[in-house]
């Protein structure tokens, strides 16, 4: 059967709508939670970066932001249940490879947890060099996952 362009468009739109509505409330909640959590982690990391760049960081800001990242990082894994990828119909930049290559994804997440814990330790110590090093490690942990598992904007 050959479909006209208009019919195809309608079919795509309808399928999309069906897919979107097919996601369970738990899947929708998980996707929303991981987006919110990553957004907060990103904001906190920007705070730390900006403070380090200032050359004389406000350690009150650095400490609280590092604590926030360290508290949020271990939460991330539970927000990637099976079915919450692109097939859910929900707008998400999570690639299907997350679930196809769980071992690598899991390893990347564990590195984020370890790096953010080290970042918090460095922030609490007040040691500028240790802080800069922990910042670099955390940034690398973010980037390696983004490169492999996240769609470009």
């Amino acid at each position, binding site marked *: 059967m050959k479909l006209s362009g208009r019919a195809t468009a309608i079919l795509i739109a309808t399928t999309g709508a069906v897919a979107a509505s097919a996601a369970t409330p738990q899947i929708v909640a998980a996707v929303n939670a991981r987006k919110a*959590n990553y957004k907060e982690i990103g904001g906190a990391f920007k705070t730390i970066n900006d403070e380090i760049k200032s050359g004389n960081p406000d350690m009150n800001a650095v400490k*609280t932001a590092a604590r926030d990242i360290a508290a*949020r990082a271990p939460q991330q894994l539970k927000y990637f249940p099976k079915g919450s990828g692109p097939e859910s119909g929900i707008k998400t930049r999570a690639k299907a490879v997350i679930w196809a290559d769980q071992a690598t994804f899991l390893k990347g997440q564990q590195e984020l947890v370890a790096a953010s814990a080290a970042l918090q330790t460095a922030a609490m110590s007040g040691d500028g060099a240790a802080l800069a090093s922990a910042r670099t490690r955390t940034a690398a942990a973010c980037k390696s996952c983004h490169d492999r598992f996240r769609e470009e904007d």
Partner: protein
Amino acid sequence: MSNPMYGRRAFLLKGALGGAAMTVGIPLLDAFLDGNGAAFAATLGGGRLPVRFGTWFWGCGMIPDRWQPKATGSGYDLPPQLAPIKAVQQHVSVLSGFDVILDGKGNLPHISGNTAVRTGAPTDNWQTIQGPTLDVIIADAIGAGSVFRSIDLSADGNSRTSYSFRNGNSMNAAVPTAAELYGKLFGPDFHDPNKAEFTPDPRYIARRSVLSAVSEQRRALLARVGAADRARLDQYFTAIREVEEKLSLKLQKPPPAEACVLPGKLAPSKADVDYTDVAERRADHKLMASLLAMGLACNQTRIFNMAYSTAASDLRRAGNTTGYHQSTHEELVDRSIGYQPTVDHFATESMAAWADFVEALAAIKEGDGTLLDNMLVFAHSDVSYAKNHDVTGIPVMLAGRAGGKVKTGLHINAPAEPISRIGLTLQQVMGIPADAWGQDAMRTRRPVSEILV
């Protein structure tokens, strides 16, 4: 004294008036008191002086390095922002490091933290809170034996500045000025509990009778409606019950209260007071604290909420258009001192006001100690670090010994522990049989045992 003969109902004589039930109080008898004549509260369901509960709120948090003590335990150090509490430090415990756990939720500044501290679960607005604020839970349990189940106060002159909610649709409006508070506590309806004579006001007998007459219809209506309407009616009838209780109390001679002294009338307040001016705010707040303390001593209420400033604090200095909250966002960190100086000023001023409040409660002698010894006051903010509006490490302080159940003068630091542990502890101290509190990641069964006697 636990003899049920001498329970609260022993004060009541029941009868009928025009076919409607009525209740009339009888004079206080010696039989209702203990040997010292000090345990009048036995007639209200307990053998000791009443223990009261209250909250004290300030907006915009603090600067951690300038607020949080370094030493834990007793005799903790007082960093610059806490220095104003020196005179009352022995009454105040500092609880630092407790977190609001957002668990996949965004931090909606000024709301996520405040809703989580008060309801045990963060939400994006007050309309979607998942349960009543903890003051309401406690008021429902212990608030019935006084004239007002709860008194909500805001020192900013705005009756809508309140963080006390029965549910998302039902905020407890605040008394916004000292003048209004005086009228509410000590106006024409006030009965001095220490006066020998007492005459029940016929107006209350009539009102009480009308309410009693509709109780059967009330029950019948509840049985007929669906769940949503039942919830609405339940909320409505809760308010009605409060009125009934209040009227019942108006028909009884109030039990004596040794510390109760009717305050003198207030001087007329100045016209057009600008309560955002931190100096005006502090002065009116101090007056409100004294009136509230006497209201508590006179058993007008056992529960209160005081909002010293709004979430996203509205304070400013006279002559300045930029206030506290705006400064947290816009003032540059002075790198030579490591903090925002204007923000530091307002955070310190807020602690000075907290010290005023504690001092007012500690100034009233009651029994062998003070009014404050028979209370528990829970002070907290909406955020931790003012500049970032974080909700990790929201500052908390407790004042009072809760009738001997709570230790004071301690600093407890518990990084990454859910702040709902404090809310659970407060409920348990106030006699609520709760073994858990909070939702999702904030759910806890562990009270802060370090403060318990």
